[in-house]
């Protein structure tokens, strides 16, 4: 365990290092194992290793208990389902401190479930007969209507015929009368069936009936407007009432079968009107009766569900907790004597006493005769990375972790990211008006933090809320840079003093700087507002922002290389300092550090030198005279030295390191054979616990190629990364141009029409454009670019990011997991 701190020259920088971890072994007697794990879960500082990974889930020690938990979880899901269907919401308050017994809960859940199932079954039965009656009633209604109308039309026809007969009594009457009498005698008794059929099947139903009886049926359907609850499935369905007339017994049996196949419910129906009305009253009476019975049943059910709801959350929590405990217990391996469990896991060094304490408490509370044993193991395995964060730093740590989790004890970029990230964002998003808008929005999130953190938020909202402190910092910094750029929705304000320049005479126009003379002291903070809107605004700001981006970029890249120095110092790797850090420093600073210095000199002296020219000809023809581009005496000699140093540092980076590593490896290998004898007992222990520490492979060609890639990447990267920082300028330019377009082309133009409606429309468009484009999309794009600058340009100088996160066993997450 690398517990020792870095060398004496620099501070230990605890802030940047992940917590020192240790692999501990816990030996717990069987009887107190459950309580121990439970206490450790409350503590949440131990990450158990799975010692039984080769066993399948049901072969593990506590498989039976996990099955019990699964069963109970199923019951709880059943309750939840039932409660949400009945509209009963469980009490959300979790009463802490009440310890409920697991076995009691199981018995209770069992009882409640069977009770609930029974009540449900009874209710279902009642509901079913109720639904049947409702259907029956509807059928009586509709079919009655049908028969009545048929009767009416029949009588109407009859009377028509009769009236016709009366009119034409002369010729045809005897024949017709004869016909009628024959009809009456030969009349076949038509049977009929009535019932309800689901509407989507009604057409097929009719068709099949028609086919099956070869068209010898007469069917009438009428639509029921409101949907009906089907007695069999208990679901709402749209249905039709049908009446089928048929002749013959065979047809009847066919129709019956088809009805059955289509799930059509048949009900008896009588042709006589008297019987109909009698049945109607009967059905209505029974319906009313059933309704009261059902509502009584529902009340009883609701009472039961409410009693469940009172303790629901507690049970739910308990069951989840138990399940987590047993899952963890399954990771421990059983001792040969079967009297104790042995567990291994990672924990931070500082937590040792707390864990010890938890073990003791568990031993005492469970009346165990033997205490648990905690011992530290030595291992060569890479420990997990654990940073202690608070609600402010978490979001920044997440940003870094999204790229890769830091290697154990590697310098954590987050520490600087907290400042540099919002700052680089603000360089691209410099407008103190927009900054204030974002500040207000994020203040709302921060002030209502307590409320928001307890409830579930939407996807996007969740993200904004999680990053509220990042956004807060970003807005503060963009107010700051906005003041420097002197932008407020692209309107300049002479906040700190009035402008340093004045018109020479009254005739000078605003759109030009010619004719301005300096009358006061230089504007004290940021850009002089008088630049705004002038013809030379863009050239001035571009030059300023471009140079500033390069300065910031070179500074941040230097910081990255410095971090690699601290890493090398911490891991005591002299090779990395002398053959990586030093040449890298020289290379970067001889080229781009020099450029930065030139920029500053140019700013200070107001020289007219062309820096592009200087840089380009420093490479192309270093021996040429600088001429008017000379910024300081002896510049040529300085440049030649820098160029020479930069060229030398490339092979310096490339060649020595692989050879030195090879030598070191050989030396270590030779020494090993002798060294092991001195510390036999120690190494034996390592062998048994850590699973042996086989010789690491050393492949020279691989190391060399790796170093070659690394060198090329750095050399090319120095150029491309510096260029990449120019995005700061580009985005900042885009932002200020966009906001000035919205201000001038929308707001000012609308103002110019002197029409109140156009003004209102103009203001609305301006507000939506500002919020939608500038505050949301621009924020997002500036955020992404800042992210990239950190992940690529800054972190590739030092960050390995190949560690894994410390994931302790804790109950705080157990409650949140959703299935």
């Amino acid at each position, binding site marked *: 365990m690398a517990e020792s701190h870095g060398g004496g020259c620099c501070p230990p920088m605890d802030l940047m290092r992940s917590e020192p971890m240790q692999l501990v072994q816990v030996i717990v007697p069987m009887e107190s194992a459950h309580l121990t794990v439970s206490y450790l879960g409350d503590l949440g500082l131990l990450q158990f290793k799975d010692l039984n990974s080769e066993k399948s889930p049901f072969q593990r020690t506590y498989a039976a208990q996990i099955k019990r938990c699964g069963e109970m979880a199923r019951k709880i899901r059943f309750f939840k389902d039932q409660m949400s269907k009945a509209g009963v919401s469980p009490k959300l308050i979790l009463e802490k401190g009440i310890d409920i017994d697991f076995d009691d809960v199981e018995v209770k859940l069992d009882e409640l479930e069977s009770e609930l199932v029974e009540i449900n079954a009874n209710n279902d039965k009642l509901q079913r007969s109720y639904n049947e009656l409702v259907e029956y009633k509807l059928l009586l209604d509709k079919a009655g209507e049908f028969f009545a109308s048929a009767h009416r039309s029949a009588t109407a026809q009859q009377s028509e015929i009769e009236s016709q007969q009366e009119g034409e009594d002369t010729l045809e009457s005897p024949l017709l009368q004869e016909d009628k009498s024959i009809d009456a005698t030969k009349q076949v008794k038509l049977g009929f069936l009535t019932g309800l059929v689901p509407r989507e099947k009604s057409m097929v139903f009719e068709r099949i009936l028609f086919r099956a009886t070869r068209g010898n049926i007469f069917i009438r359907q009428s639509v029921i407007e409101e949907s009906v609850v089907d007695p069999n499935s208990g679901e709402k369905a749209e249905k039709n009432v049908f009446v089928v007339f048929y002749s013959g017994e065979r047809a009847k049996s066919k129709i019956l079968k088809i009805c059955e*196949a289509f799930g059509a419910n048949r009900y008896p129906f009588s042709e006589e009107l008297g019987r109909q009305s009698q049945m109607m009253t009967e059905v209505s009476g029974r319906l009313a009766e059933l309704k009261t019975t059902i509502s009584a049943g529902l009340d009883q059910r609701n009472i039961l569900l409410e009693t469940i709801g009172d303790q629901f959350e507690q049970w739910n929590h308990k069951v989840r907790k138990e399940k987590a405990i047993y899952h963890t217990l399954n990771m421990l391996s059983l001792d040969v004597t079967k009297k104790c469990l042995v567990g291994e896991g990672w924990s931070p060094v500082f937590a040792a006493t707390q864990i010890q304490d938890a073990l003791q408490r568990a031993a005492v509370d469970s009346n165990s005769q033997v205490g648990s044993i905690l011992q530290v193991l030595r291992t060569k395995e890479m420990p997990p990375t654990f940073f202690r964060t608070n609600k402010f730093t978490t979001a920044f740590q997440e940003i870094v972790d999204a790229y890769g989790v830091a290697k154990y004890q590697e310098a954590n970029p987050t520490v600087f990211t907290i400042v540099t990230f919002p700052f680089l964002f603000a360089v691209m998003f410099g407008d103190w008006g927009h900054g204030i808008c974002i500040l207000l929005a994020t203040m709302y999130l921060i002030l209502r933090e307590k409320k928001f953190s307890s409830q579930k938020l939407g996807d996007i909202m969740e993200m904004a809320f999680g990053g509220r402190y990042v956004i807060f910092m970003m807005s503060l910094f963009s107010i700051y840079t906005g003041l420097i750029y002197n932008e407020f929705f692209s309107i300049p304000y002479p906040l700190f003093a009035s402008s340093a320049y004045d018109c020479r005479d009254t005739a000078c126009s605003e759109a030009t700087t010619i004719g301005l003379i300096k009358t006061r002291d230089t504007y004290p903070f940021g850009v002089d507002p008088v630049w705004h809107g002038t013809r030379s605004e863009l050239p001035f700001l571009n030059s300023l922002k471009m140079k500033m981006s390069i300065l910031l970029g070179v500074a941040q890249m230097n910081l990255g290389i410095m971090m690699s120095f601290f890493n090398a110092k911490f891991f005591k790797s002299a090779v990395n300092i002398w053959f990586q850090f030093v040449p890298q420093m020289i290379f970067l600073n001889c080229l781009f550090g020099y450029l930065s210095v030139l920029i500053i000199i140019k700013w200070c002296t107001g020289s007219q030198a062309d820096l592009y020219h200087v840089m380009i000809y420093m490479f192309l023809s270093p021996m040429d005279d600088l001429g008017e581009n000379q910024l300081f005496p002896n510049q040529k000699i300085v440049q030649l030295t820098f160029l020479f140093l930069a060229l030398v540092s490339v092979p310096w980076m490339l060649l020595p390191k692989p050879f030195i590593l090879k030598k070191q490896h050989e030396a270590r290998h030779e020494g090993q054979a002798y060294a092991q004898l001195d510390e036999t007992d120690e190494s034996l222990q390592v062998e048994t616990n850590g699973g042996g520490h086989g010789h690491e492979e050393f492949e020279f060609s691989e190391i060399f190629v790796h170093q070659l890639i690394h060198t090329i990447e750095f050399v090319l990267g120095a150029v491309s990364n510096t260029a990449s920082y120019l995005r700061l300028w580009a985005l900042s330019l885009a932002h200020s141009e966009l906001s000035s377009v919205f201000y001038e082309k929308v707001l000012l133009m609308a103002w110019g029409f002197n029409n109140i409606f156009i003004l209102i429309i103009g203001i609305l468009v301006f507000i939506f454009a500002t919020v939608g484009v500038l505050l949301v999309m621009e924020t997002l794009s500036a955020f992404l670019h800042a992210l990239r600058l950190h992940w690529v340009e800054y972190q590739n100088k030092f960050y390995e990011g190949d560690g894994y996160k410390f994931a302790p066993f804790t109950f705080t997450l157990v409650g949140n997991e959703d299935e």
Partner: protein
Amino acid sequence: MYGFEALTFNIHGGYLEAIVRGHRAGLLTTADYNNLCQCENLDDIKMHLSATKYGSYLQNEPSPLHTTTIVEKCTLKLVDDYKHMLCQATEPMSSFLEYIRYGHMIDNVVLIVTGTLHERDVQELIEKCHPLGMFDSIATLAVAQNMRELYRLVLVDTPLAPYFSECLTSEDLDDMNIEIMRNTLYKAYLEDFYKFCQKLGGATSEIMSDLLAFEADRRAVNITINSIGTELTREDRKKLYSNFGLLYPYGHEELAICEDIDQVRGVMEKYPPYQAIFSKMSYGESQMLDKAFYEEEVRRLCLAFEQQFHYAVFFAYMRLREQEIRNLMWISECVAQNQKSRIHDSVVYMF
């Protein structure tokens, strides 16, 4: 457009192919089966399956489980997969997917008709039907008395209607007739499917031809073995063989006159791909034949995944899942009846 599927396939089929390959990754592996074989009771099986794709389908089942529940839930998963793919598919893939379920439809029709013949309850029969082979008026099948009625009443609305043209008789339905009907339908179905795949062309037709030819040959062998000793004439028997496949036409001639299993074997050993299957068995044995065929089929189905840009992967996935469900059913039955020694008799490992 043979060989150029890569250009255009992904426009319509890319998403679904990705989906189906994802599903394939969810099939149980040999390691899973080994673990399942060690289960002591059905709850262990549930626990093990909860770590697989079946997890969400089984988690809400109350504890004393039955084999039927497990099979039902696993089939539900297959059906859900299928429905998801079907509703995403465009022509001609949707037709291809529809073809896959016709086989189940035939089985369901036969099941219901046989059931009604033996006077079973229709509702009970419908529960036994494979959900993939369901159609609207399936329950009405119970009404029919003979083949013609069956066709006229119900099946004329279903995609199976064209297959019926060959077996329309007015004879009353009995067990023998139904079995002949099943095989005639299957023959027509396989031939139609084969033609459809040929029409699709490209890798689909290549791979599907192979898979369907195997299916046809297997059916031919099974028909032969099952009809030995029945009153089915040689001509009738020959009529039931599908008109394609490795055995067509000469193998069919020889199979048609076989009188016992060893003669069948003699015929089949002339065909190299089937030689391996039959050489595993001792003479006169036919129990292991099913398993041997299943194993060969699974091997071929797995090979279908080796090639990209064709529809056979959907067919292969559905078949593999069905095999997997058969495996699970066998394992569950063995575990439930404490016959763990027999588990390996019928389980076909896939990967």
